[in-house]
């Protein structure tokens, strides 16, 4: 039963997220708003129900498998990909590296300014 309850919580939040996204015609996909709904719910409740944890962590463990069906969709774009393959590869490598570099540096710098406060807590 617990798996069903956990799944119902997830689907319920996704459903609410979908409703909010459409009702307010937000550019944000429903599942993302559903994540916010669940997060707010958990903060109010103050703990994660065991049933939710079992199914939630199970899904997250196999998250990468869930990307496969969309990825196989590349099969529809072989023509376009062949034409621009080097552009795509160069862009992806350059942009992903720069993004990781910039983000980690910015975080490092802004986090360091708060170091004293952190030490007090530790």
């Amino acid at each position: 039963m617990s798996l069903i309850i956990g799944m119902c919580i997830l689907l319920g939040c996704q459903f609410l997220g979908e409703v909010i996204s459409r009702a307010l015609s937000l550019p944000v996909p429903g599942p993302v708003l559903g994540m916010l709904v669940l997060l707010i719910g958990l903060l109010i409740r103050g703990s994660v129900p065991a049933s939710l944890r079992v199914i939630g962590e199970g899904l997250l463990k196999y998250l990468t498998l869930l990307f496969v069906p969309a990825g196989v969709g590349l099969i529809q774009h072989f023509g376009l990909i062949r034409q621009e393959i080097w552009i795509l590869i160069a862009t992806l490598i350059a942009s992903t590296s720069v993004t990781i570099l910039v983000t980690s540096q910015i975080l490092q710098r802004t986090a360091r300014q708060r170091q004293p406060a952190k030490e007090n807590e530790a």
Partner: protein
Amino acid sequence: MNTLGLEQIWVYLSASPLLHLFATLLAFILATYINRWAGGTPLLHPVIVTIALLIGFLLFTGTDYATYFQGAQFLHFLLGPATVALAIPLYDHRERVRRMLRPIVIGTITGVATAVISAVGVAMALGANTETVLSLAPKSVTSPIAMGIAEKLGGIPSLTAGLVLITGVIGCIVGPWIFRLTRITDPTIQGYSMGLAAHGFGTAYCFASVGAVAGAFSGLAMGVSGLTTAFLLPPLVHLLGL
């Protein structure tokens, strides 16, 4: 008689969702073994190998994507609840998040802007066509969000889905290398950067190779940067004149 029977079974199976759902799971198991044999290199990431195996299978059997998707959609559907489930690690690490709030806000906005501007900039400089550029723009965001954004911008959602995956693999390859080079050891920073630049792949990588804290922060980054990109990207792309 016998071959005719087999043919009929194949005609039936090849059109039923059962075959392609089963094939997807089998391919994933096989890919996981291949990756292990290869010493766990991110170049042969299980997801990329799975996709390659399945594309090979579809080409070999002459199956079109729509037929395949009838079976695979059951897995695809679970992306929604899995995205919602990201709230759980976030909740578990709410104290750390609260403490890091300011770096997170600044890091997210800069990171998302960097991801979009560098992708669009490099692609345009190399002379990609507009559709490709628009499909590339949301590449760092988790696929359900990226596909939604690409569609709104006028890109090709299923091309975006593929590019998002490749971005994820690249992130897992270059990320650890960049952290080593710039001496970043804080798991919260590693996790957040990986999640922002390489979405679910970065998150899965962090959970598996860095630890639970990094994984949670990566999941957080994936959610927050997804939200931010969804709001920031349309005006940014407009600004770049596309």
